[in-house]
């Protein structure tokens, strides 16, 4: 297992995921009730999408994304409300009976699609609060109904940066001992690079390290920013071609105009393994023209045209790094990624010089690097 392709508002999930799977870079896909309809319409139904993906040996998950309902600007319910996920009003989880009913409905939908159980959860802002208690209770109910269900932990940056309070909450959840976990950092805006805080990265790493001792850990919407958690023990990373697949953010669930868009042409940034960063299409083209040797070394390889090719290159890069990290033991994975960050930080000024721009190395690298470094200190590496 390496990469899992997150659902997208565009109509390309199945075809592009299968292309990545054929290359051996993606092994799974996630569909969401916010972006995939339960019945056929402008987009293929969830059932059809699952069938086509499973026919190509792609493991599919239905993430109920119940945590999105607690986001302040959630409003894009055009597909969501057709899914029978609620007995009462949407989002009602104030009693144990309501929680149980919702979990049962989620599991029923997953059973009907023939996908594994992934339990719903509640968005966390503080790991010791009424909402964290509710998230624990929801997880306990899901675990009682199906001890084999994957459990999810979703929180904003402050949640993951909460130090010992986070560790205590994670410890309570760990008592449930599910076979796998999905961890998500939620942000305000769908922007890249994500503003990863040092303590947030540290907290995500500590959590991945702890839970990975006896369970699989997936970093949902992790993309490049999720790599420190992979070095700390996570085995799969959520990604995609659209920023909304690379980042879990409030803005991804806001009301938006109808229409699926044209295949992702508006986002065509190139992924540079040597920089652990993306460059815009114009920057990538200029770097390729001005210093082809540097471009080739950092990508690595030739700059490919088109959004699909750039996505496939992106999955090549991520899968290669994830493969290296998951093949190593904890200290070696830490050292591997820290070396990559150090090297990337050294190369950014040269790239910026060629492009005539200010280096964005700090934006892409400092949060993950420092968070990883703190994790290393905690572990005594």
């Amino acid at each position, binding site marked *: 297992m390496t990469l899992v392709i997150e659902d997208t508002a565009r109509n390309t999930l199945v075809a592009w995921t299968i292309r990545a799977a054929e290359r051996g870079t993606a092994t799974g896909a996630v569909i969401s009730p916010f972006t995939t309809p339960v019945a056929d319409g402008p987009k293929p139904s969830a059932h059809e999408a699952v069938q086509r993906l499973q026919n190509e040996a792609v493991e599919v998950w239905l993430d109920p994304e119940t945590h999105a309902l607690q986001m302040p600007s959630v409003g894009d319910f055009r597909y969501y409300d057709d899914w029978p996920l609620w007995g009462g009003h949407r989002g009602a989880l104030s009693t144990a009976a309501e929680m149980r009913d919702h979990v049962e409905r989620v599991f029923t939908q997953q059973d009907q699609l023939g996908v594994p159980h992934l339990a719903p959860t509640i968005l966390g802002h503080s*790991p*010791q*609060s*009424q909402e*964290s*208690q509710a*998230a*624990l209770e929801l997880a306990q109910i899901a675990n009682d109904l199906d001890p084999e269900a994957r459990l999810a932990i979703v929180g904003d940056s402050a949640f993951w940066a909460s130090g*010992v*309070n986070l*560790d*205590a*909450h*994670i*410890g*309570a*959840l*760990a*008592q449930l*001992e599910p076979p796998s976990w999905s961890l998500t950092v939620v942000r305000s805006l769908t922007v890249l690079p994500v503003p990863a805080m040092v303590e947030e990265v540290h907290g995500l790493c*500590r*959590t991945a*390290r*702890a*839970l990975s*001792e006896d369970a699989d850990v997936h970093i949902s919407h992790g993309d490049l920013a999720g790599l420190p958690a992979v070095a700390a023990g996570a085995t799969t990373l959520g990604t995609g071609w659209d920023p909304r697949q690379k980042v879990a953010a409030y803005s991804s669930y806001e009301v938006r105009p109808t229409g699926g868009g044209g295949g992702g042409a508006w986002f065509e940034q190139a992924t540079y393994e040597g920089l652990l960063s993306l460059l815009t299409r114009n920057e990538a083209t200029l770097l390729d023209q001005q210093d082809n040797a540097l471009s080739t070394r950092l990508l690595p390889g030739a700059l490919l045209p088109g959004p699909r090719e750039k996505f496939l290159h992106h999955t090549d890069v991520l899968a290669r790094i994830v493969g290296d990290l998951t093949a190593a033991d904890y200290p070696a994975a830490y050292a591997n990624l820290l070396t990559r960050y150090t090297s990337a930080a050294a190369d950014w000024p040269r790239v910026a010089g060629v492009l005539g721009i200010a280096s964005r190395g700090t934006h892409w690298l400092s949060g993950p690097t420092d968070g990883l470094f703190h994790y290393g200190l905690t572990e005594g590496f």
Partner: protein
Amino acid sequence: MPVDQALLDEAFATLGVSDVRELKTGGQKTVRLVDQGGTRLVMKVIALESGAPDALKRAQREVELLQQINHDHVVKVASGLVELGTPAHGVTWLEEYLDGNDLSDHLTSAWTWDATQEMALQVADGLGALHAAKVVHRDLSANNVRRTTAGTYVVMDPGFARHTLRSGITVGGQPGTPGFLSPEHLGWYSGIPTPASDVFCVGILAFVALTCQLPIPYTGDLSDYIDRLARVEVTDIETLRNDLSPSQLALLRRMLHPQSARRPRNGSRLKEALEAIA
């Protein structure tokens, strides 16, 4: 509010026991040796400051669970939890009488690994029975483990204190004994003690047995202790006992790990880990 004679008399009458002698008194709690039809039992009485109906209901449910536990390393409960007065101004219950001494009486010089391991194994075994019944001890200290004259270790005071006793540290609303607290004793909501917190406390007992020192020392300054507990500033065992093997050191560090998810999950898992070293 201390336990007064009127409350004691009410407890004797309610439980149908006669007083033999006092065993221990402190704060809101009194422990008496009593006789019930020729059988020596321990009667515990806790004075309640005010009505706490939800806490009492939880405590009563837990006592019912504990009455079903018949384990060599858990003190046997001989009665249900009985409320004294309406509304309740005290609670009382009966336990088996254990001879021997509290573990604290035996911690005057450093133990061998083998002796420490045996103690931790038996305590972990007892905790495993509690955890299987969904009970977290939360107040495991050297005064809550008995070493009988036969050399067996028995976990005492399981479960009751957290619902009723308000002495000791109540940061986060948790009972406990300074020096013997886990980091989760400082938590709220979903961050409160779990079975892995009891494992941390077994780690403290093992640490003290091996070194005669607390891993997070308590010298009487509660706020200083709480600060260091919050940062989980644990003295590394190897600085005090460099004769221990790598696997022994590794397990002790796991038991005292700041992240509860990194510790053996519960008493049974801890017992397995200790046996694996043997």
